[in-house]
């Protein structure tokens, strides 16, 4: 269960158009047409991408009159996923530094 929701979120983010939408939404809510405008695709195609993001739980939308407004919803990251994500990220960063340290201190005789 823990990794399932995260898998869905990352699968949704595996597409550049959807990443562009998420990056836009991190700055604040936007309408569907605002999200679609900078993308090199038709509005219906953009709406399909939006649907994937909504199904992943990363994005929610609400229709007010004729305008649908979308926003990011970080609740998809449950408490446990946040915990694991942060601890994992801490380790990823530490291991990045360890790899760099090993590179810098490599003895010459090990070529």
């Amino acid at each position, binding site marked *: 269960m823990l990794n399932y929701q995260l898998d869905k979120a990352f699968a949704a983010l595996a597409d550049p158009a959807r*990443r562009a939408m998420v990056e836009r939404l991190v700055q604040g809510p936007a309408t569907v047409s605002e999200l679609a405008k900078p993308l090199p695709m038709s509005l219906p195609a953009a709406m399909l991408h939006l649907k994937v993001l909504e199904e992943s739980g990363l994005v929610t939308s609400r229709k007010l009159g004729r305008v649908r407004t979308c926003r990011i919803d970080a609740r998809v990251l449950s*408490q446990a996923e946040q*915990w694991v994500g942060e601890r994992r990220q801490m380790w990823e960063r530490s291991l990045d530094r360890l790899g760099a340290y*090993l590179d810098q201190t490599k003895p010459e005789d090990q070529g």
Partner: protein
Amino acid sequence: MPRSITHGSFTIIRHWNHAPTRVFDAFAKQDAKAKWFAGPPGCQLYDKSFDFREGGRETLSGKHADGKVTTFDCVYRDIVAPTATEAGRIIYSYVMHLNGTKISVSQAAVEIVPETGGTKLVLTEYGDYLDGYDDAGSREHGTNWLMDTLGKSLEG
């Protein structure tokens, strides 16, 4: 904050073109470990201790840029040095405190496995994360984490 335990685990695998003994030393020697095992940028470390042997303890406290204080308190449970051909491992349990409150109890296993041209490192951590996420900004935090991770995946 209701009392609760959230269980989680994760595994990270890295491949390095460095000898297993060098990777092990980077965990085993205090000056080498200090080069990479630190908090995030801007984190000031203090109150360090380091006793790398089975039953030995390592502690590290850090004051983060935003003022929060975390402490890492670890006991080494199993230490096997690798050779050029045989895998080694380091297993330890640790407790984390945030601003004096115990937030997690974890066990981590680091496997250092020789492979052609270098070393495979497999880090597996199991954690009990205690009493919910004690941070009113947790949603923001989750988003930041997601974006950092996204950014990293884009760079790579």
